[in-house]
C-alpha cells in the first residue's frame, strides 16, 4: 500500500512553501528621500586586481572582504565604500572590520564579544603591529605561520584595503588619455597639467564636498557629469555600457543565491509529498527546479560573459559548475526515465553545492587567470568534463542514499531498491565516461602545455584512483558480485574518493607544505563526513544481512 498525505494537507503544504519562497526572494524595499544618490556612481568603471569592473562590483568585493558581508547596520556596500573613500575621518572610527579569531582578539586585548572593530582600534594597537610585523617577517622567510599569525595577516590585509581606500589609492577610476591605457586616481591627478583631467579632479572634489555636507542635488549632478566625463576621457579603454550593465545586473540579482532557494523549495516539495501521484504537484515541483536551473544557468552564462572565459577557474566557480552539471544531468535522466528520483536527487545535491559555494568563505570575485591557465580552451574543456563526471557521481551518491534508506526503512520495497540501483548504475556509467574523457583532456592539455601527458602528480593520481574505484564497481556489477546494497555502498565510497580528489588533494595532502586558508576546519568536516557515511553504510549493512521481521 502506498501511503500519502490527505489531499487538503497538500494544498496547505504547497501554500506554505510558496509563501516561504516569496519571503526569501522578496527584495527589501528601500525608500528614504534625503539619502545621497550613491547609486549614480555604481556604473563607473574601476581598474582593480587586473580587471576593469563596475564600481558596484568593486565596492561589493571590498566590503565583502573587509566586513564579511555586503550589508551591515543598514549600510549597503556602496555606502560603506564611499564612506571610507570620502569621509575617512568618520568611518575609520566605525567598527566595520571583521576579526573572526577569538585568540587574536584575546591577544590584542579586544572585546571578545564584538565581531567587528574600527580601523583605528586595529592599526592603533601596538600589539597588532608587533604581531603583523613578526608574521610578515616569518612569511618572507618561508617559515610556517601559526594560526594566530595567519589571522593577523588576514586582518592586516583587510586593514590595508581600507587604508588604500581612505587614501584614495585604490580608486583607480580615471582612464588616462595616454597610449599605454593606464588608469589613475583622483588624488594622483590633482597636479596634472592636462585640462581635461583637471576638470575631473575638480568635479570629484565637488562631489566629495557635497557628500560631506549632505547636499543631494550637487552630489547627483556632479556624479552624473563625472560618469560621462570619465567615459569620454579615453573611450578606447572604457568598457561598453552593455558590459557594465550586465555585470551590475549580475551583482544585483545574485542568481546563485536565488537558484539555491528555488532548488530547496522544489526539492522539499517533491520530498514532503512522499512521491504523491498528484501530477500537478510533480509539475509544479519540476517548474520550481526549472526556475532555479534557469537562474543557475543565467548566472554561469553571465560569469562567462563578464570574465570572457569559461567560469571554471577556481573552487567557487567549479563548485557552481558542478551544481549546474548535477541539475542538468538530473533533468536529462528525469526526461528519459521519468522517475522523480532524479529530480529529487538533482535538486538536493545542486542545492548543497550552491549552499556551500554561496555561504563558505571562498573567494567569489571574477579575477583574471594566471598564465598557466590562460590563452587555452583546454581549461574549459578539461575542467568542465571533469566537473560533469563529479556531477554524475554526486547524483549517483544521492541515489545510493535513497536506496540505502529505502532498504533501512522500507525493507519490503525491493522493487524500489531495484529500480534505484538500475538508475544509479546507469548514472555511474555516465560519470565514468565523463571522468575518462576529462582525464584524457587533462592529459592532452598537459602534453600540449608541459610536454608530458602524465606525471603522477597527486591530483592526477587521485583522479586515476577514483577512476579505478568506479571501474571496480562497474566490473563488480558486471561479474554479478555487487547486488543492490553493494552497488549503493560502493558508489558512496566512490564519491568519498571524488571529494578527496576534488578537495582533499589541495587541502589535506598538501596541508604540510602550503599554508592555505581554512585547511584545518576542512579536514575536520571531511573526516566527519567520511565517518558519517561509513556509519550509514555499516548500519545499512547490518540491517541488510538480517532483514527485519515482516
Amino acid at each position, binding site marked *: 500500500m502506498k501511503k500519502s498525505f490527505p489531499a487538503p494537507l497538500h494544498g496547505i503544504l504547497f501554500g506554505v512553501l510558496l509563501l516561504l519562497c516569496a519571503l526569501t526572494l522578496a527584495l527589501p524595499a528601500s525608500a528614504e528621500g534625503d539619502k545621497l544618490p550613491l547609486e549614480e556612481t555604481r556604473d563607473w568603471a574601476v*581598474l*582593480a*586586481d*587586473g*580587471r576593469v569592473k563596475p564600481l558596484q562590483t568593486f565596492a561589493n568585493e571590498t566590503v565583502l572582504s573587509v566586513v564579511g558581508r555586503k550589508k551591515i547596520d543598514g549600510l549597503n556596500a556602496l555606502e560603506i565604500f564611499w564612506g571610507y573613500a570620502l569621509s575617512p575621518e568618520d568611518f575609520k572610527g566605525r567598527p566595520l572590520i571583521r576579526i573572526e579569531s577569538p585568540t587574536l582578539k584575546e591577544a590584542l586585548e579586544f572585546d571578545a564579544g564584538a565581531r567587528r572593530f574600527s*580601523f583605528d582600534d586595529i*592599526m592603533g594597537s*601596538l*600589539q597588532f*603591529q*608587533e604581531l603583523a*610585523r613578526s608574521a610578515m617577517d616569518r612569511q618572507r622567510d618561508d617559515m610556517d605561520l601559526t594560526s594566530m599569525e595567519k589571522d593577523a595577516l588576514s586582518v592586516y590585509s583587510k586593514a*590595508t584595503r581600507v*587604508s588604500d581606500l581612505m*587614501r584614495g589609492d585604490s580608486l*583607480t577610476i580615471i582612464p588616462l588619455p595616454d597610449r599605454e*591605457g593606464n*588608469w589613475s586616481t583622483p588624488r594622483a591627478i590633482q597636479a596634472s597639467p592636462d585640462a581635461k583631467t583637471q576638470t575631473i579632479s575638480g568635479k570629484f572634489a565637488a562631489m566629495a564636498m557635497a557628500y560631506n555636507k549632505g547636499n543631494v542635488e550637487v552630489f547627483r549632478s556632479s556624479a552624473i557629469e563625472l560618469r560621462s566625463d570619465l567615459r569620454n576621457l579615453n573611450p578606447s579603454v572604457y568598457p561598453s555600457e552593455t558590459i557594465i550593465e550586465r555585470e551590475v545586473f549580475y551583482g544585483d540579482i545574485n542568481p546563485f543565491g536565488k537558484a539555491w532557494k528555488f532548488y530547496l523549495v522544489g526539492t522539499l516539495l517533491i520530498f514532503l509529498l512522499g512521491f504523491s501521484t498528484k501530477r500537478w504537484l510533480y509539475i509544479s515541483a519540476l517548474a520550481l527546479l526549472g526556475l532555479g536551473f534557469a537562474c543557475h544557468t543565467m548566472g554561469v552564462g553571465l560569469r562567462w560573459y563578464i570574465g570572457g572565459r569559461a567560469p571554471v577557474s577556481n573552487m567557487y566557480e567549479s563548485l557552481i559548475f558542478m551544481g549546474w552539471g548535477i541539475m542538468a544531468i538530473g533533468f536529462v535522466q528525469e526526461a*528519459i*526515465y521519468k*522517475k522523480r528520483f532524479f529530480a529529487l536527487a538533482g535538486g538536493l545535491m545542486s542545492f548543497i553545492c550552491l549552499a556551500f559555494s554561496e555561504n563558505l568563505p571562498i573567494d567569489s570575485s571574477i579575477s*583574471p587567470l*594566471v*598564465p*598557466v591557465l*590562460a*590563452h587555452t580552451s583546454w581549461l574549459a574543456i578539461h575542467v568542465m568534463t571533469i566537473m560533469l563526471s563529479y556531477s554524475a557521481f554526486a547524483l549517483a551518491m544521492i541515489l545510493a542514499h535513497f536506496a540505502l534508506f529505502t532498504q533501512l526503512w522500507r525493507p519490503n520495497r525491493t522493487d524500489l531498491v*531495484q*529500480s534505484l540501483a*538500475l*538508475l544509479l*548504475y*546507469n548514472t555511474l*556509467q*555516465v560519470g565514468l*565516461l565523463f571522468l*575518462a574523457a576529462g582525464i*584524457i583532456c587533462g592529459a592532452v592539455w598537459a*602534453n*600540449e*602545455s*608541459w*610536454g*608530458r601527458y*602524465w606525471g*603522477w602528480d*597527486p591530483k592526477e593520481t*587521485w583522479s586515476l*584512483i577514483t577512476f*579505478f*574505484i568506479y*571501474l*571496480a564497481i562497474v*566490473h*563488480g556489477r*558486471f*561479474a554479478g558480485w555487487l547486488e543492490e546494497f553493494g552497488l549503493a555502498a560502493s558508489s558512496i565510497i566512490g564519491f568519498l574518493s571524488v571529494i578527496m580528489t576534488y578537495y582533499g*588533494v589541495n587541502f589535506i*595532502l598538501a596541508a*604540510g607544505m602550503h599554508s592555505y586558508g581554512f585547511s584545518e576546519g576542512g579536514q575536520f568536516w571531511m573526516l566527519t563526513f567520511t565517518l558519517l557515511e561509513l556509519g550509514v553504510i555499516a548500519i545499512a549493512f547490518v540491517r541488510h544481512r538480517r532483514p527485519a521481521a515482516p
Partner: protein
Amino acid sequence: MEHRKSPFIHFFQFLGKVQFTMVLLLLGVVVMTVGTIIESRESREIAQSVIYGAFWFDTFLFLIGLNLVISVINRIPIQRHQWAFVLVHFSIVILLIGSWVSHSIGYEGQAMIYEGSTSNQLFLDTKQLRLDWVGGEAIFPIEPGTDLTGKILQEEEGTRPAVRILEYIPRGTQKVLLGEGRPQDPPGIRFSITGDQEFVNDWEIAKGGRATVRDVGSYEVEVVPVPSEAFLAARREAKPSAGYRVILHARADSSPVEIPLPEGLGKDFQIGDGIVAKVESFFLNARLVKGVLEDVPTAAINPAVIVEIRTASGSERHTLFTQFPDFNVIHNRDPNQKRIERLAFVGAASIPKTRISVLVGPGEQLHLQLTTDSGIEAAVPIAVKEGILLQSSGVKFELTERLLHARSNLRVKPVPDGWQGGESPYLKVELNSQGVGESFWIQYGSMAQHELAGQGVVTVFGQEIRTLPFTITLKEFEVLTHPGSSRPSEYRSQITLTPASKSLPPREEVISMNRPLDEQGFRLFQSSYKLGKGNEPDATILSISHDPGVPIVYISFGMLVLGITWYLRNQSRQAMLLSRAADRAREQLALAGNDER
C-alpha cells in the same frame, strides 16, 4: 575438449578473468593512495623512486595489459555486440604500449638561456659523472636505486686514469671541518660567541686572501688578511653611519620636513602653521615588552620612533616603524583641518646583522673590528684566548685558536628518512694514474680539479646533457602583467631558432605559456625564468621534450572515448528497456490489486 584443459590453460584464462581485474584495480587503488601519501609526507622524488618508477610497478602495469589482452582472447570468437568491449579494452592496451614507448625512448630536459646568448644543449634529469683528462674524456651514467659502492667505472690505460666509486650517497649533507693546511693555504681562526641568546663555537678561513663571511646567529664573522700597515691604519678609524630620519608632510603640496636622528631627538620642529613635531624616543632594536616599547639590544634590528605632534588644540603621539610604511600615514583628528598628510620614518642603509671582522697580520698582529647599524667602529687589538664584549649587549666574542694556514675538510653523511632541507646527492670518487691516487667527495652539480702525476683531471658530477639539432638564441624574455596590477598574465620568450642543417633558414619564434613550439620532433615549452640584477628576469628556462609515444597515446585516447560512448549507448538502451518493463509490470500489478479491491 572443454573438460581436458591443462592447468596452464586454466591459469592463462584466469589472467584474463574479471576476478583478476578486480585484484589489479583494488591493488592499484591501494598502491596509488600510498604513493600520494608518501609524496605529501616525504617528497616527489621518493614517491617516484619507491612506487611509480620501481620495477614492480612496471610489472603491475604489464599485468594490467596482460589481463586486458587475455580478456579479449577469452571472448574469441567475438560476437557483434562485443566489439565495443574489445575497442575499450584494446585502447587501454595501446595506451600502455604508448606510455612504454614514451618511457623508454622519449626524454625531456631543461634549457636555460640568458638574454642575448645561444644554446643547443638540453639538460636532462638523469645524473652522470664526466671526466676530462689530457687526451680523452668519458661519461658514466649514475642511476639512482642501484648499488654503486666499489664499482669500477674504467681501468687505467695510457693517460686514462682508473676511476672507481667508493661511495654513493643519494641524499646526504656535508659538514666542513677545519684542519691544519699546507703552507700555501690562507689563515683561519676558531672562535666562540657567548651571551644572552648566542652559544656558538665555529671557525672561519680567509679564502684566497679575500674575506668571506660566515653567518652566526645575529652576527657575521669574517677573517680579513691584512695586506699592509696602511690598510690596518685606515681600519683603526671609526666611521659613523648616515643615520635615520623622520619625514613629515604637513600637506600634500608642502615640502617635507626631515628630522635627522639621533641628532634631532627631543627637539621641536615646526612643520607648517602651528604644528610642532618632536621625536620623543628612538629605539634601534624595538620590541614590545608587556605592551610597552623597549630597546632590547639582543633582539634583531627593528628601528622605531615615538613622535609627538602638537597643535593649538592638543597633542598626540604616534609610534612608527621603518618596516611599516603603511602604518605611518594615517592621521590625525585635528578639528582645524591642519592635517598631517604623511608621516614617515626612514631608516639608514640598515645592516641586518652586526659584522665581526678579525684582521689577521701582518705578522703576529690580530685586530677586531665591528660594523653595526650605527657605523663602523675602530679596529682594536685582540689576542688568542682573550674575550671581548661586543657593544653593551653582554655578548662575548672569544678568539679560541689561530691557524696560520688552514684548510677545510669535507665530511658527508646520509640524512635520515623524512629529512628535508639542504640534502643533495654525493659521490666519493677515487682516481688513479701512474701510481698516484686521489679520493674525494663531489657534490651533485659541482666540479673538481686534481693533479695526477703532473696531469690535470677534471671531474664533473652533474646532469646528463644532450645536443639538440638546432640552436636557440634568446632575444628577449618578458613577464607581462594584467593592467594595473603586478599579477603576471604571460611569460614570453622571443627566440631565434637556427636548425643545425644548413638547408633550413633561421626563424623568429615566440614561446609562451600554453603556446609551445614544435621543431624536428622536439617540443619547446615556456617553463620558468631566472631573475637577474634588479629583480629583472634575464634568462628563460625552456622545457624541451622528445616523445615519440605521444601519437600512439593520442590514438588510444580517441579509441577509449569512442569505445566507452558506444558501450554506454548499448547499456543505456538496455537499462531503459529494463526500467520501462519493470514499470509496466508494476502498473499491471497495481491494476490487478485495484480490481481485487
